């Protein structure tokens, strides 16, 4: 392994601009004569809009325009769509309710925008927005998906009777019922997966500029996938044709899913820039983010898992109600279906699985993918069930898991996924060793002697990443293909630019992608530049989400490098008068193997561009592009072990040890991969112990700022022990599985399993705040036992 190639802990190339304050984020962009947008948002969760009086706002000095939904639809700006069609089990299509970027006759969640003010300053725009008088006729609201399904619940969309979006199933119900009927033991649980707010630290922002002479738009935006944004803005929202719209996602301060979607604000800023002939900028503040950024999770499930007399799982049946909020966001339908129920086999050999999912409208912010997206919900369900079953069966929870592990690959589950590689028992062994499970009893005794409770919990997670084979997702309803593209440009001086459709918003692609190129062509990493995030520079791309950048995006780069290498060898063979097969690339040179004949890498570049002496018929230049469409999902998996100590007097829980063993396949940069795990774990622990979006019954948001929504802080979290047990993914050229979401997927059940182990009460919901843990201890009578 070289110091800069695959497997090296190369320090990040991009850090200097961030550590010196020179990063360029969307809100840092300011054009000449910049105008600012502020949205008029509904203070009610559900209301008819009977009128909008903007006269006072329009009369304010410095207000350029006040625009509303009627004008927007009048200009034929399209409704916001969900891009993944999921049918109900009876074959009927999903009931997608109309979602206008500015609501016209009805608002359906607190924060739903009804108008926008464009003004000379941000402060003025905000003040004017407060002066817009909206005549709301308040309607009853419903925020719980389970309640929204009841017959007397308020109805959100006319075309979704009973607020039901679709009623979907996967797996064989009759066979699963039969298997459960014959089970020796059944574990049954009701499991809630709490609603979360993604909270990337950079609030969303958009700067839209219309060039009247060219009839051309430029949009700077906080996006994880600028090309997809352009496609949707053009093809579905009718803002501008693609060749007249440039989307730039510059430095983006975290995404976690929340910046995948095209939001109303981006549409409105583009449209408003045309209407006012001004560059229009909008930047969310944190309070606005809580009521506009898509939320995550929010499932209520009942689950039954059956075991035979040898403690082998015979069947698993799940019924889930998923809250999608007031409108269907871009990938909302896929998250609680194909990204969720297809992972319900976990790491286990389960012959019979059935899952029914009902997705529901409520008067809440739309819900969509948040780090893990469906897979955390599946993992939490499976791993809570396994731990609970072990307790009920009186067996070691790690051994119950081991006895049901899939050991041979490939393995076809009954819920679509075909696992390609893994070492589940190896992950478990390595993690138990690293976590010193053997010493737990002594540590527990010490805690008890100190008046504290101590517990240990496992999570053996699996996820599907590298999303995804285009034909496969197409057959499941996806509105796009999920390949990735790349272009490798070797300049005449031999330096290289790699243009990728993946987008980096913290993942460190500028370093890891360069490492792969440096490794392949044996060049200094400084000579390689990764270019991303601009539709005018990169031809196309599907963006970054679902831990796909390395598995799919890098694979496209590898394919493009294959073509570059072939051409380099042809040129060198021609110049050096040798056979292509004998050409090797190493040490900055292109050589004839076994001879002293060589030319510099840069000379090959120069030769290609000078074009004075190229092989017969060869085009000049040295630039190749490639599209890579994966042949399967990838399946990162691992074992997490969490050890907690609980103060029974207050319910305060501290994580004493957190051990992660992950199988991510090939690792390009262990330092960056470990960083991804750390961050994922923090979000997973946050879900388990701290975070939760809470609405009151009227749809008012109780957790609308950092005063009430608990973001994980440094003193809430431990140092993590992060280890790897890699098996190579057989289905992509580098053997990569993906690492971005594992921590957020695997951590929550490990934490809750540990806390419930400590307190001796399995009835504990996330987030396990001190108050909730204390209440569960009270209910279990454990507080008395300790005193």
């Amino acid at each position: 392994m070289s110091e800069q190639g695959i497997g090296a802990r190369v320090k990040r190339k991009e850090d200097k601009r961030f550590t010196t304050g020179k990063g360029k984020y969307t809100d840092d962009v300011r054009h000449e004569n910049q105008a600012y947008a502020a949205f008029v948002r509904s203070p009610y969760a559900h209301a008819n809009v009977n009128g909008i009086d903007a006269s006072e706002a329009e009369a304010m000095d410095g207000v350029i325009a006040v625009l509303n939904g009627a004008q927007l639809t009048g200009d034929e700006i399209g409704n916001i769509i969900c891009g993944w069609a999921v049918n109900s089990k009876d074959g009927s299509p999903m009931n997608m309710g109309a979602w206008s970027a500015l609501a016209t006759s009805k608002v359906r969640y607190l924060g739903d925008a009804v108008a926008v003010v464009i003004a000379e300053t941000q402060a003025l725009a905000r003040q004017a927005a407060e002066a817009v008088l909206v005549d709301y006729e308040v309607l009853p609201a419903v925020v719980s998906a389970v309640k929204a399904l009841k017959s007397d619940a308020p109805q959100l969309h006319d075309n979704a009777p009973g607020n039901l979006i679709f009623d979907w199933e996967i797996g064989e119900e009759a066979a699963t019922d039969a298997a459960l009927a014959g089970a020796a033991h059944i574990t049954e649980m009701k499991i809630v997966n709490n609603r979360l707010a993604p909270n990337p630290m950079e609030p969303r922002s958009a700067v839209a500029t219309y060039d009247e002479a060219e009839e051309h738009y430029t949009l700077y935006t906080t996006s994880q996938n600028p090309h997809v944004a352009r496609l949707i803005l053009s093809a579905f929202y009718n803002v501008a044709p693609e060749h007249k719209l440039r989307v730039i996602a510059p430095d983006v301060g975290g995404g976690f899913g929340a910046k995948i979607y095209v939001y109303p604000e981006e549409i409105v800023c583009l449209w408003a820039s045309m209407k006012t002939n001004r560059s229009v900028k909008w930047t969310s503040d944190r309070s606005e983010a809580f009521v506009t950024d898509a939320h995550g999770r929010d499932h209520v499930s009942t689950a039954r898992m059956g075991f035979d007399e040898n403690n082998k799982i015979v069947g698993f049946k799940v019924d889930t109600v998923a809250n999608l909020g007031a409108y269907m966001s871009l990938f909302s339908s896929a998250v609680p279906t194909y990204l969720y129920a297809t992972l319900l086999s976990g790491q286990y050999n389960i012959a019979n699985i059935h899952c029914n999912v009902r997705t529901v409208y409520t008067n809440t912010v739309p819900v969509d993918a948040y780090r893990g997206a469906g897979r955390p919900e599946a993992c939490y369900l499976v791993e809570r069930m396994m731990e609970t079953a072990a307790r009920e069966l009186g067996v070691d929870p790690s051994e119950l898991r081991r006895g049901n592990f899939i050991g041979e690959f490939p393995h076809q589950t009954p819920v679509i996924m075909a696992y390609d590689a893994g070492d589940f028992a190896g992950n478990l062994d390595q993690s138990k060793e690293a976590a010193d499970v053997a010493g737990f009893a002594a540590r527990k005794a010490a805690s008890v002697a100190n008046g504290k409770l101590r517990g240990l919990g496992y999570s053996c997670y699996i996820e599907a990443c590298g999303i995804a084979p285009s034909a496969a997702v197409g057959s499941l309803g996806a509105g796009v293909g999920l390949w990735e593209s790349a272009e490798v440009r070797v300049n005449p001086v031999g330096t290289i630019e790699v243009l990728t459709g993946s987008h980096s918003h913290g993942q460190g692609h500028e370093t890891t992608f360069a490492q792969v190129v440096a490794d392949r062509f044996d060049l200094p990493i400084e000579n390689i530049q990764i270019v991303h995030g601009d539709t005018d520079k990169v031809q196309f791309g599907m963006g970054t989400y679902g831990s796909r950048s390395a598995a799919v995006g890098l694979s496209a780069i590898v394919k493009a490098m294959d073509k570059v290498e072939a051409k380099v060898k042809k040129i060198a063979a021609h110049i050096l008068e040798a056979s292509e097969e004998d050409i090797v690339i190493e040490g900055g040179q292109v050589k004839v193997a076994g001879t002293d004949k060589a030319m510099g890498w840069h000379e090959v570049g120069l030769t290609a561009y000078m074009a004075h002496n190229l092989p017969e018929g060869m085009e000049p230049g040295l630039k190749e592009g490639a599209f890579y469409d994966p042949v399967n999902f990838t399946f990162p998996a691992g074992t997490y072990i969490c050890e907690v100590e609980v103060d029974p007097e207050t319910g305060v829980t501290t994580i004493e040890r957190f051990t992660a063993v992950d199988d991510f396949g090939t690792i390009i940069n262990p330092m960056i991969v470990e960083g991804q795990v750390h961050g994922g774990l923090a979000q997973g622990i946050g879900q388990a112990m701290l975070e939760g979006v809470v609405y009151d019954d009227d749809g008012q948001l109780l957790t609308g700022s950092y005063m009430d929504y608990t973001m994980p802080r440094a003193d809430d979290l431990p140092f993590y022990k992060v280890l790897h047990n890699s098996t190579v993914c057989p289905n992509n050229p580098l053997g990569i599985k993906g690492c971005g979401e594992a921590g957020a997927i695997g951590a929550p059940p490990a934490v809750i399993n540990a806390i419930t182990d400590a307190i001796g009460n399995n009835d504990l919901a996330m987030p396990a705040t001190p108050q909730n843990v204390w209440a569960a201890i009270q209910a279990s009578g454990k507080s008395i036992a300790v005193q």
Partner: protein
Amino acid sequence: MYSTTYHKPASIEDAIAALNGGEDTKILAGGQTLIATMKQHLAAPSDLVDIRAIGGMSGISAAGGALTIGAATTHAEVASSAEVKSLCSALCDLAGGIGDPAVRHQGTIGGSLANNDPAADYPAAILALGATIKTNTREIAALDFFDGLFTTALEENEIIVSISIPVPQKAAYAKFPQPASRFALVGVFVAQTDDGVRVAVTGAGEDGVYRHQGLEEALGSNWSASAAAGVPISPDGLMSDLHGTAAYRANLIGVMAKRAVAAT
């Protein structure tokens, strides 16, 4: 934020003049709450009168068995004061636990007291220690100062100048932070003073900071953690919210009181 006019008087007289000169004036002492409130458009004062440049408004001194802390003294200054440490280290601990380091560099004791947030820390100390709040016109005993949520005995445009704190025999503060805001979900300040034992509770009461009679009686006769632990704490009159039911807060009052006493 809405527009406002900023004043930075160098004397109390000028400050009073500025306060009387505006339509809706507010005193700016550290701004860590006020500016945040203005940003949310929840306050829109026509004028802000910054009292931090007034001579003698900040600083810490000790004399005659009492600590005197200027109103514009920051939390960081109190937390790191050697004088406070030697005479009433509980106050250092309390000040060092308000907000975060950057907030402590700006927030002031006078601002905290005048705002009387029901989850603020200082009111518990001031009440338990039997401090006196000195304003530009008079002296107000702590017992008479706090008057319900965000309300005090201060008249309009009355300026806190300093706080005089009798040095206690023993004192400690135990805070249980609300997980998100890190304000006190429950904070209990226990003090053994020349006037007897006082126990003040912040974060929990529906009417803001208050003294807990049961704990005072128990600790008055037996200053021990076990005496504190034996006091039944009623949830009546305690706040209930997302982060703590009244029952949970009642439990925390007992636990924090016990731990505070144990720390003395």
